[in-house]
């Protein structure tokens, strides 16, 4: 029998959600300052209203949901999934007020896409959007990449005890350091260092290609935010194609790869353990996957004669593949080209790369390369067991920071989450097909949403049906949180309705 949630349970959830909302309101002051600095008065009002709504709701929740009870695992999971939905609604307010989105649903879509570091966008006339709104779009990616609740934990929550369920609820399976708060701080340190380096590199490149100083800095900052957090938003509608710059492509590839690495691996590298990169199951599996999938993609493109010469084929094919595999979604081709010029084999390569994703405990989405590595190892061992004599003892080990013996529990967990992702991808595909889109395009866009990638073959547009927008929002939310906290929220709603 499922116990029905009590008033105290709601108070705990309300208290922590209120703190998250206050943190969101504080973060809206950054684009407000940008609007003031650039004299964008109308945009400034959008953020005054947005931040004020956050503060009002946050204070009301904190005042009316006061409790001294500690957060339990169940509460933590519900807080996380609920907070992400609240962040979507509240983060959409300043976007909607700018009138660059056709309706509130479209603004919610882009807010969730930002927080979940997806990069699919329904914004209209992006090329005339204010600096303040662009700052907010990219900031949502930076906040979401680290984890909305990680940000709130760093800003407004005391004590590591309450932090652990929240940390794990945001799809962070591994603690880099023994203490969750220390881990959160390390994640921030790494993110800020790479943000600084990325901003400088991209801003200098933009400046040297003739862009003005201020624009170069802002573009450098925004692109570094979205590349490191494997997000994919850009300040112009042509994505990376806007810059017509090979150096820009190289820097963003580097940032995307860095952002897709497991934070535990970052820590090992910072601690001077460079050999870990060569030994780690994630980096090895990622390398194999990139080689195999690029062969698939490149062969398809070459056979179809999609690009003139090997250099442009490599430049376009490899960039799109890395963008897909790291879950970023930056594009150096127009969206229509996927549907019109890319053969099915190449689309399959990109779709598989998106579905697999990159490092666990990174800013990337998708099934994650660690789970694929675990399942592949388990499969090979099972084959070995059938070939070897019954008396033979097969011990399967993987190396991920340390040597780990693969137990059935680890394999089952990896398989279950993989299965859940496959169902999530199928859900969006089926809705897409039901709404009249061709199978390969519906699958491509659904995987892109569910794995939080952001590559588009042209389906994502303000004119797409509302049912598909809602489906993609759900996919982005569930995919980013890796299901557990979403199931906890659904379970709590069920318990509220049917529990005793």
């Amino acid at each position, binding site marked *: 029998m499922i116990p029905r949630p009590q008033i105290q349970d709601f108070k705990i959830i309300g208290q922590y959600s209120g703190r998250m909302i206050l943190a969101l309101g504080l973060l809206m002051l950054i684009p407000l300052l940008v609007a003031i600095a650039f004299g964008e008065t109308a945009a400034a*009002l959008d953020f005054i209203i947005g931040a004020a709504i956050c503060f009002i709701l946050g204070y009301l929740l904190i005042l009316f949901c006061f409790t001294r009870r500690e957060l339990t695992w169940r509460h933590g999971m519900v807080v996380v999934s609920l907070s992400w939905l609240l962040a979507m609604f509240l983060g959409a307010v300043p976007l909607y007020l700018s009138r660059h989105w056709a309706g509130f649903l479209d603004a919610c879509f882009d807010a969730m896409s930002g927080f979940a570091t997806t990069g699919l966008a329904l914004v209209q006339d992006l090329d*005339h959007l204010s600096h303040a709104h662009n700052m907010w779009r990219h900031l949502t990616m930076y906040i979401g990449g680290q984890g909305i609740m990680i940000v709130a934990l760093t800003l407004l929550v005391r004590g590591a005890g309450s932090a652990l369920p929240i940390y794990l609820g945001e799809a962070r399976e591994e603690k880099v350091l023994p203490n969750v708060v220390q881990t959160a701080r390390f994640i921030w340190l790494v993110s800020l260092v790479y943000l600084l380096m990325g901003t400088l590199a991209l801003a200098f490149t933009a400046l040297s290609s003739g862009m003005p100083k201020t624009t170069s800095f802002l573009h450098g900052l925004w692109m570094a935010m979205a590349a490191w957090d494997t997000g994919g938003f850009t300040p112009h509608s042509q994505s990376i194609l806007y810059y017509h710059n090979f150096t820009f492509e190289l820097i963003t590839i580097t940032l995307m790869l860095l952002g897709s690495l497991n934070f535990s691996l970052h820590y090992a590298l910072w601690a001077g353990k460079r050999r870990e990169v060569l030994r780690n199951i994630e980096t090895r599996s990622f390398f194999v996957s990139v080689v195999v999938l690029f062969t698939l993609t490149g062969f398809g493109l070459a056979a179809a004669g999609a690009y003139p010469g090997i250099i442009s084929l490599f430049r376009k094919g490899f960039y799109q593949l890395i963008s897909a595999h790291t879950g970023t979604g930056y594009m150096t081709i127009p969206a229509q080209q996927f549907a019109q010029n890319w053969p099915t084999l190449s689309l399959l390569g990109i779709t598989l790369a998106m579905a697999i994703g990159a490092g666990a405990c990174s800013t990337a989405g998708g099934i994650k390369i660690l789970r694929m590595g675990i399942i592949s190892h388990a499969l090979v061992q099972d084959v070995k067991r059938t070939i070897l004599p019954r008396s033979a003892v097969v011990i399967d080990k993987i190396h991920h920071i340390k040597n780990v013996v693969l137990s059935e529990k680890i394999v089952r967990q990896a398989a279950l989450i993989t299965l859940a992702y496959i169902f999530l991808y199928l859900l969006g595909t089926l809705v897409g097909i039901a709404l009249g889109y061709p199978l390969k395009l519906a699958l491509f866009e659904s995987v892109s949403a569910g794995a939080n990638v952001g590559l588009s073959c042209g389906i994502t547009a303000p004119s797409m049906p509302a049912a598909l927008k809602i489906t993609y929002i759900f996919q982005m939310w569930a995919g980013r949180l890796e299901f557990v906290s979403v199931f906890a929220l659904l379970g709590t709603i069920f318990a509220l309705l049917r529990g005793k």
Partner: protein
Amino acid sequence: MMAMQNAKCKMQNLFFILILLSTINYQLSTNIAEAATAVSSKELLENPGEYDGEEITFEGEAIGDIMVRGEFAWVNVRDEHGAIGVFCPLELAEKIGYRGSYGFKGDTLSVRGEFHRACAEHGGDSDIHAEKILIVQEGGERSHPLTSGKTRASVILPAIVLFLAVIHLIVRRFR
């Protein structure tokens, strides 16, 4: 003699007017022809094979910054469906006065040049190598009028926040 000179002069004037008229007519007909064959970005990007390597005319607003590449430059031009990169000599790009951004509506350009589905010179980009750029309509400043509802809300809501913040501080002290 005088009458003959007058008649000759009139003939010269008539001849000059005829040449002028035919030049204007040619110019107008060329522009009309160019305007008539203007292709949209939707058409170009959805049927790139059809226009690959062809001389086309593309009309749209100049957006963002001009990116200089030696004696050439990149200008991004956008119509209602999407944007395409235009590669042109720097002197053509320098004629563009306004480029679209939050504060400005960019000049509307008519770009005549060769379309490439996947340009071998530029790493496989879909682009137009422009020979001629005409400013069809000059851009200008964009206004962002403040609505009374937004202005009122941005005064009332912060006042409520202030009130709740004070209440929160008081309640915290008593708890």
